[in-house]
């Protein structure tokens, strides 16, 4: 393997990605949004399910 080094000289250079900053960052950004959404969905659903089951249990006990 050749020498591995940071390919950018400055933060601005990194953000610019040559001239392709918009394309690279929008691709990575959209992917991040989808991945985070995919992670959050089951967490939220689980929370919702558990509270729903708990409510119905409480209702059963009170009857």
């Amino acid at each position, binding site marked *: 393997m050749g020498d591995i080094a940071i390919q950018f000289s400055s933060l601005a250079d990194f953000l610019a990605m040559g*001239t392709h900053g918009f*394309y*690279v960052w929008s691709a990575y950004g959209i992917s991040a949004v989808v991945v985070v959404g995919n*992670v959050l969905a*089951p967490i939220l659903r689980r929370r919702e399910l558990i509270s729903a089951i708990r409510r119905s*249990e409480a209702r059963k006990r009170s009857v």
Partner: protein
Amino acid sequence: MYEKLKRFYHQLGSPRYFYHISGHFLPWLAVLASLLLLVGIVWALLFAPPDYQQGHSFRIIYIHVPMAILAQSVYMLMAVAGAIGLIWKMKVADMLAKASAPLGASFTLLALVTGAIWGKPTWGTWWIWDARLTSMLVLFFLYMGIIALHGAIQNVQNAARATAVLALVGVVNIPIIKYSVQWWNTLHQPATFKLTEKPAMPPEMWVPLLITLLGFYVLFALLLLMRTRCEIIDRERSSKWVRQLVIAQR
């Protein structure tokens, strides 16, 4: 050994056992996925050398290719799980198949979107009727059909059986679609500049690709287990063990 494996397989078929055992895997998968993705993405964005033709837009490959590969393997997994559910009436397999459909569809969509974004600086247009992108689009349609069919059938068990049949039909068709689209593509446009076909990528380019690919696979396994566990809680909500589980959770 074989007997043990067989027993484990049958135990996995029980939703309660599956829920219990998968709980142990979740933290490890989460740690492994974050580690691999962190290393892979940082390497991809900062350390991988730019492509001599495409420049830095080449870095989109580290998302696009893993997503495209995952989209196809998730479909296969969904079909296999569906077949197991169909033949051996294994409830957990049905739930795995159901849980993998939206994940696969979102990966396919990401592969399409990142492909389009990559195409703009490379080809000069957002969309091109390239063989790979077109068969990805068809794969997305197949996922949408399965999700729509699952949503339309009220009875959970019948929904699982119907989507399993459709997924299997899709598996038979995917290679046919793929080759017909490739054939069509070579007919209509002489081989243009391919996004991913490179003459031997150097290791400092493909090692991070391998790492992100592995990372996304582990992430998928994690998400699949999380979704399946939700599904188990939902379907077994009237059973004693789920009620005890809910009460135990504070």
